[in-house]
């Protein structure tokens, strides 16, 4: 039974610091400002909150699809491109991945703001007279989130593509399939586990994400997570913030459960 001494400390530590307080937060949502399901009632009836939920789901869907397309392209070249390009891609993916989300959002502010790089170039070229608004709106938030999420989609896709048996592709070629048909009918279906995994990972991450939207949305593109942050930090609506977190957690739990049902996670972690 000695090994119990090894296993026990971490779960006990997390039970105390994380699991019990989580129950406390659930309790909060049912007791503040008054006992009952008032907070949950408000979430499912208040048009403002429902609007924020819809915006969140819509933006997360856009971010997931764009990230996936970008990641598929990059992953494909990372696996099948010439060696030098593989090196370059590795560097271009890993450097942003290891850099703080704050600095990445800040970089996009410099590029996209009204007096930023893109507007400066377009003005110099005489293409625009008025600066285009690219931050403090949904466009900026989507760009920043895609930039943050892309590596998380690239890694599972690379893992899946590396596992595709090259002999299958050779067989398809030998049987007379052209490059387009080989990709559409053989390669893409075989890479599907990675696609599904990447999509869910990005979608789940995006749901609870508030740093990038807060910086690039400038308070005008409030999604659920940022709304909770505002409820907690500015208006001190503890109960409502806690109830929103519970709903968000339930949503994420369902998504993770679906993901585990349709793919085998072992395949993604290699």
């Amino acid at each position, binding site marked *: 039974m000695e090994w119990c001494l090894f296993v026990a400390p*971490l779960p006990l530590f997390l039970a105390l610091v994380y699991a019990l307080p989580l129950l*406390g937060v659930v309790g909060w949502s049912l007791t503040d400002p008054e006992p009952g399901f008032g907070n949950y009632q408000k979430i499912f009836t208040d048009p403002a909150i429902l609007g924020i939920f819809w915006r969140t789901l819509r933006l997360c869907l856009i971010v997931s699809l764009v990230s996936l397309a970008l990641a598929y392209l990059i992953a494909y070249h990372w696996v099948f491109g010439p060696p030098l390009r593989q090196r370059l891609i590795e560097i271009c993916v890993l450097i942003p991945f290891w*850099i703080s989300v704050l600095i990445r959002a800040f970089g996009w502010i410099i590029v996209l703001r009204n007096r930023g790089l893109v507007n400066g170039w377009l003005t110099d070229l005489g293409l625009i007279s008025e600066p285009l608004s690219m931050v403090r709106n949904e466009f900026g938030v989507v760009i920043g989130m895609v930039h943050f999420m892309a590596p998380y989609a690239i890694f599972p896709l690379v893992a899946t593509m590396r596992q595709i048996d090259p002999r299958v592709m050779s067989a398809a*070629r030998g049987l007379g399939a052209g490059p387009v048909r080989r990709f559409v009918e053989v390669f893409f279906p075989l890479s599907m586990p990675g696609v599904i995994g990447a999509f869910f990972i990005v979608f789940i991450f995006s749901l609870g994400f508030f*740093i990038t939207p807060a910086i690039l949305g400038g308070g005008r593109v409030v999604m659920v997570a940022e709304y909770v942050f505002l409820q907690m930090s500015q208006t001190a609506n503890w109960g409502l913030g806690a109830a929103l977190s519970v709903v968000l957690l339930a949503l994420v739990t369902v998504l993770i459960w679906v993901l585990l049902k349709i793919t085998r996670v072992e395949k993604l972690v290699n």
Partner: protein
Amino acid sequence: MRAERPGGPSTLMVYMAMVFLIFPLLAIIPVSFTPKRFLSMPSDELSLRHYEALATSPEWLGSIWQSLMVATASAVLATVLAVLFALGIWYRRPRLTPLLIGFVILPMAVPPIISAIVLYFFETRMGLYDTLPGVILAHTVIVVPYAVITVLVVLSQLDRRIERAARNLGASLWQTTVFVILPNIKVGIASAGFLAFVLSWEEIAITLFVTSFDVVTLPRRIWSGLRDNIDPVIASVSVVLIALTVAAVLVRTVAVGMKARRNKEASA
């Protein structure tokens, strides 16, 4: 797989995608050398004033120091807990293994905003809110799943027979751990610790909730600086951090390349 070499149009697209990934980071570099007091591209002269401001500001230096302390303590704590846990699982695969692993990696799957509220709830009730130990505990919770996964992966590649050999030769479980297993996974432990350190060093979402005034980590100070009128010092901080990251990634890429070459020569 040579048949599946990507074609010309997609090659052009992938280079554009790489520019997309790297460009916002490159854009920060010239801004950090602006001679002006507001965020701008330098036009004719370059200035180091914002680097000087960074190097002489007690606030920024204090934040760097606090972040170093928090990240070091969280990394040590998380790594110790993770190594013990992973070893226990590896020695005796209890029937509850999937459940136990699921439980300890929970903080990684839960959206950061929710973890932040949970930890705020814990710290305010424990009197740890806005204290260094409080931030260290909160960061440990958030980074420990990554350390656990890293150590579990390394252990899964270890030959189980070395444990049995040690036990058969009369070593106790503790002796086996200290003299046989740990030396064999020290690289994995180091990378778990390094990962935990980096994640804590740049953690912001949780930190916003569990600190207010006394503890201002480096990311928290950057966050405050990103409000309306952005101080160009943010650009110089960013450039320093980007330079460190680039150096680390390049060293790693070169090291992996050399290792691969050595292995090739060894097998040839």
